[in-house]
Structure formats: C-alpha cells, structure tokens
C-alpha cells in the first residue's frame, strides 16, 4: 500500500506551507478537521479519550488519542 503525501494543513485545510505554526496555536483545542492529503473537510467524531476522522474523498482514516496539553 502506498503512503499518502501530506500537502494540506489538517487544521485549516490550506496548503501546509501557507500556515506554518500559526494554525497549531490558533486551533490548539480543535481536532484536525481537514484531510492533510486532499484538503477536504473530514468526518470527525470526538470521543472522550480520542478522535476518529475519515475523508470521504481520498478514503484516508485516522484515529488519534489526542488531547490539548
């Protein structure tokens, strides 16, 4: 299975070179809502101890045990 190239910021959906660290700080209490491969909005479900997301366009799925620091 091939690997996916991450070209987009998961927090704002813009090309990742355009937002740098600004999005990480601005959205530090948000899960990623955009697909890092194609930039489309993700289906996101927040659970108490993790987040699951899926992109209906490029079929990428992710499950992360994320929480704000």
């Amino acid at each position: 299975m091939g690997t996916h190239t991450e070209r987009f910021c998961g927090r704002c959906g813009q090309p990742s070179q355009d937002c740098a660290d600004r999005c990480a700080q601005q959205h530090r209490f948000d899960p990623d809502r955009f697909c890092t491969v194609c930039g489309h909005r993700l289906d996101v479900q927040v659970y108490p101890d993790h987040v699951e997301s899926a992109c209906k366009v490029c079929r990428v799925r992710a499950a992360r045990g994320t929480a704000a620091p």
Partner: protein
Amino acid sequence: MSTARPHADHQASDVQDLLDDVEQQLLGRHEPITADQAYGLAALADVARDPESQALTRMLDLAHRVRLDWCGEEVSLESILSTKTGGCPEDCAFCSQSSTFDTDVKPQPFLTREQVMQAATSAQANGATEFCMVLAIKGPDDKAMAHILDSVEAVHDGTDLEVAISAGLLTADQATTLAEAGVVRYNHNLESARSFFPRICTTHDWQERLDTCQHVRDSGMELCSGGILGMGESAAQRAELALSLAALEPTEVPVNFLNPRPGTPLQQQLVLDPRVALHGVALFRLVIPWAMLRYAGGREMVLGDLQGTGLLGGANGMIIGNYLTTLGRTPQADLQMLSDLKVPVKALTGLL
C-alpha cells in the same frame, strides 16, 4: 480633621462586610443568600480583575469553605459524548454545531450502540462516574428518542456509570419516558440570564428552556442546568442566571466558559479574563451552595494554569477528557492535578 475613611479602605471594608454577611448566612445559619447579596457579590467582578485586590482571594476562600460544608470533599468526574453531532436547527450564537452558521463542524449520523458502549467503557476506565450523552437537536423526535433509549440501555448493560442525557427541549411525556428508562440526570442549561438570552438565540426562548427544566424536575430525574460565562453578559447578569438556576434547585450546575468558535456570531468575543472566570465560579457556589458545580467547556482555554484554583474556590466537579467537538486535557493530566491538590475523587479506585 476629616473623619471620612480613605476611599480604598472604605471599599475594602464594604467587601469584607458583604463577605462576612454571606459567610454568616451560608455557614452560620446554613441558608441560601439573598438576591441583594448575590448582586453585591457579582459587583465584585471588576475588583476581582485587579491582582492587588484581596476580594477575589477572599471570595474563593469562602466559596471553598461553603463547598466543603454543603457538599463534602469529593470531586465528581464526568465524561461527555456527542452521539449526534452537528446539523442543529437552532441558532444559539455560541454553538459550532448550528446549521445556521458556517463552521468547521460537519454533521455526523447517530453513533451506533457499539460506539457508545466503547466510549462509555473507556470513560469508566479513566475515572468517570457519570456519562452524559449529548445530541445536537432542538428536541428529540421519535428516531432520536429511540437512539437515546438504546444508548442508555447499552451504557447500563456494559458499565456502572450514572447516565445523563442532553437532547434539547423536552415535553413532559418525554421527560417521563427518560426517567422510566433509568436516566439519572437530564442536562438543559439555561445558558444565560433571561435578560441576555435574546442576544444568544432567536429560534427558541428562555421560557422554553425553563419549562424543560421544570419537566425534568417533575419527572423525578435530577436536573443538571448551568450556563456559559463570557458571552458578553454583565456581572449582574451572571448573578441573575445563578439566581434563576437556584430557583430550579438543580442537582448539578455546569459552568462553561465561552470558547469563541469560528463561524459563530460570538467568534470575535474576547476570551474571559481568568480572574473574572474564577469570580464567576465562586459566585455560582455562593448562590447555589448545595449543587455540584462542575467545570465544563472552555476550562483549559480560559483558566489555563489557574484551573486548580477553581477546584479550591467552589467547583466540585469536572468534565474529563475531550468535549463534544473540541479537545480537553488527557484524563491522566486531570487526575494528576487532583492528586497534586489532594482533592479526593468520588468512587475512584486504583487510578491515583
């Protein structure tokens, strides 16, 4: 020579007199405070901003002693789960799940029974004793009610958690149905003072929220009702909200702090000063002394390193883990904070 007190001394004396009266009322006579006292405490919000002032310190100290006297030492932990996300038809100005606003929250279908079970099992393993399932709806239709009842059954079957539901406006019959299904507590926040609510929502009114709260009380379920601080309300309106909540005699009062969400009408609202937020926690404790006062959404963003101060300033409950659509701290970080503060946790075994 003038006998008038210097202005600063006069103010400090007034504050101490008020706090002494409130202490006597709550700890001496063990009775709730009056509306005048509540508004007097609310007026201290401006003074609370000043780190040189002792008003906030004194108020937090009193709120902590009141909490211990009226509620005991333990802190209650709850996890919450959005079982139906986004697409809400209401236009509550703070909410990223409203379909009225262009936000980043994409509507999702109802969670399956298995998904609910897994979340509840994890919540219990992480120390929660209560589990609130929340739906972004105006009120439950038949489909939503069937989902709720199935989810309640799933959580009851697989865990020892107390189940709470938050599903919008209820009829009296719906409240009875949920009570009969074993729902311990129903959440329906008043959100704000009646006088401020028209600025927050136009698709339903504050009286409808009050009516739902009354249906919950009448059904025999415990009422969980609180609000959001920092939406632009005045300090007096926070007292107005607290007094309205007190009149409902809720079991639990969640205190949320606004997290301005992109795309919502409140997206540009300045985040509440943490000292004013703490003042709000203490105010709510002093107006509603018997209730479980639960830190809810926005705690991490607004209070930051001052989160522990509120747990020694009136709060005796927390939501742990993530929220409905936003991230919280890890349960382990919150459990460590409670351990560091030496605050006992309700029904917790082997995790600390």
